[in-house]
């Protein structure tokens, strides 16, 4: 396990924690970007080049921007004065802590995991493309459908509902 991995992992986790704990939403989103960039770096580090780049492209390039837009559109760009934590946050922390301990314990104590480290697999983009076009073509189509539906749905949901006065006006 290389040093770079540990560093990146640390940075990622730290950024994630920051994203979840900072008061200002914009800072949160920026930290979130860092966290996802770190994740991408982790993927690269795990020899998943394509996935890493895709991660950057989607999360940093698209979702982060979306989130930022949403933040600004909901007028929550400034640091809030009231509490940022939901009532009963303590239970939430506790539950998540329990979850983590359980998962960690499971990971450490499980005997099913393979011990030896296999060599880095040779996967070119070409392999991935061929797999997408042959073996996984149906999921690909479905994903396309899903994305289209999601786009339309998002547009429709976020549409400003027409104010009544517009309809009273004359048709053009």
């Amino acid at each position, binding site marked *: *396990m290389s040093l770079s*991995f540990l560093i990146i*992992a640390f940075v*990622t986790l730290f950024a994630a924690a920051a*994203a*979840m*704990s900072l008061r200002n*939403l914009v800072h*949160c989103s920026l930290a*979130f970007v860092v966290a*996802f960039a770190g*994740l991408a770096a*982790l993927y690269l580090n*795990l020899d*998943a080049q394509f*996935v890493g780049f*895709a*991660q950057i492209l*989607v*999360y940093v390039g698209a*979702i982060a921007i*979306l*989130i930022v*837009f*949403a*933040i600004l559109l909901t*007028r*929550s760009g400034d640091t809030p004065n009231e509490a*940022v*934590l*939901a009532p009963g*946050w303590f*239970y*939430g922390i506790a*539950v*998540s802590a329990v*979850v*983590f301990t359980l998962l*960690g314990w499971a*990971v*450490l104590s499980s005997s099913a995991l*393979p011990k030896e480290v*296999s060599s*880095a*697999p040779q*996967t070119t983009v070409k392999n*991935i493309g061929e797999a*997408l076009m042959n073996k*996984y073509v149906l999921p690909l189509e479905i*994903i396309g459908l*899903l*994305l289209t*539906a*999601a*786009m339309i749905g*998002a547009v429709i*949901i*976020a549409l*400003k*509902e027409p104010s009544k006065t517009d309809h009273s006006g004359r048709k053009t």
Partner: protein
Amino acid sequence: MTPLQICLLVSALLFAIGFAGAVTRRHAILALVGIELMLNAANLNFIVFWRFGAHPEALTGVMFVIFSIAIAAAEAAVGLALVIAIYRHYKTSNLDEVKDLKG
């Protein structure tokens, strides 16, 4: 500790952080962000298992991550659109104030 376990621990921690955020923060967007984090922890798991698993040449893990990234994108889009709509309707985006079904 094998690298696999380290990776799994990392993803587990990521998951826990995301979960904590999603559960504790009042703001809807941050809840969404927390969910995204959990999703990515899962993705990391997939990648890790693909990388250290028995058959790296079978691209299952990678494929799954690619698809789940696509789905995450869709989910984020719809979720944020929902947040905006909710904000328009309730004039707030705090989750604990958005709790009655009929507006």
